[in-house]
């Protein structure tokens, strides 16, 4: 999951909380395993393995996820592309090397959501080597799904926090909002803001999660699907929205839109806080 995961429940005894939390943990694990690229038996791996050959039947959940991927592609003018995961093969964040055009070009040829074929409840990747990667959606979806499972089992106060993507189940037992800190993108221990949130969700995308720096330039893990290169305009973007899925998508799309991301954030109507590469903080109230 790429970070600490916690489920915080308040207003009930320790034993009950542990039992309740287990439902949430079970739901997060289920989703993580179902959509993990690294597990050969996951739904995503089955689809990826059939690239260039047969159609793959999907259940309702996967189908909804694919519909959502399509909505994201259209909403972001094509920059949020769930087939762009293959580009990560060219970028090794442990080695601090910028890949050459020869390394990127064959991978860029495998990127293109528009080419993914869909039929009713089946999906097919037309070319061998193409891959679906729900890494940009999965975590936030899991936070929403777990929060809802917990709410269904009677949870009233608490939140689900998956590596910085948080979905609130309910405010503190006394009705007060939770205080969520937003990490300083350049100072790993520090916070740049503390936001009171009583409901809904908050998500953050940043260039500090996985990156390397070379000759004064930072290369982060969010890659533009057309150029194959990391985005550079924003250091971090945080958004408050009713659902973690939406909040997380808006932050990622803002990072991908780079300079135009500010108009996108303002148009969204959501509360946001974004830090650009000069360190300037943009926000609305």
């Amino acid at each position, binding site marked *: 999951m790429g970070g600490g995961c916690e489920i915080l429940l308040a207003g009930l005894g320790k034993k009950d909380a542990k039992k309740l939390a287990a439902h949430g943990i079970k739901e997060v694990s289920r989703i993580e395993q179902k959509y993990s690229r690294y597990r050969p038996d996951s739904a995503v791996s089955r689809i990826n393995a059939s690239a260039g050959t047969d159609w793959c039947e999907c259940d309702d959940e996967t189908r909804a996820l694919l519909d959502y991927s399509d909505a994201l*592609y259209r909403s*972001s*003018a*094509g*920059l949020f592309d769930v087939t762009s995961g293959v580009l990560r093969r060219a970028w090794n964040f442990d080695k601090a090397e910028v890949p050459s055009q020869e390394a990127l070009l064959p991978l860029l040829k495998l990127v293109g959501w528009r080419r993914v074929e869909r039929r009713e409840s089946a999906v097919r990747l037309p070319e061998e080597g193409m891959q679906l990667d729900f890494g940009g959606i999965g975590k936030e979806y899991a936070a929403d799904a777990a929060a809802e499972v917990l709410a269904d089992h009677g949870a009233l106060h608490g939140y689900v926090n998956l590596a910085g993507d948080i979905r609130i189940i309910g405010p503190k037992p006394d009705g007060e909002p939770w205080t969520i800190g937003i990490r300083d993108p350049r100072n790993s221990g520090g916070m740049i803001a503390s936001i009171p949130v009583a409901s809904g969700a908050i998500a953050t995308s940043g260039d500090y999660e996985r990156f390397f720096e070379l000759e004064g330039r930072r290369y982060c893990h969010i890659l533009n699907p*057309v150029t194959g290169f990391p985005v550079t305009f924003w250091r971090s973007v945080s958004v408050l929205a009713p659902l973690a899925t939406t909040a997380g998508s808006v932050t990622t799309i803002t990072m991908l839109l780079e300079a135009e991301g500010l108009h996108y954030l303002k148009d969204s109507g959501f509360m946001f806080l974004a830090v650009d590469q000069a360190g300037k903080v943009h926000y609305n109230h």
Partner: protein
Amino acid sequence: MMIMYGLSGCSSVQPWEKQNLAKPEMTFEGDRLDTGYTEHIYSSKEASSGGAGVGGGGCGCN
């Protein structure tokens, strides 16, 4: 004009496909000072002038 309308029906380039079209060398603007000098030189040594735009300074090269 007719030719262009016929051809435009064939392609509909989506916003996410316009990365190359946005490059400066793919626009028709170009280096203003360079074009300024070049057009002034040619129009003062040839009989024809203009074509790309209206509104530049008048030329004293009668």
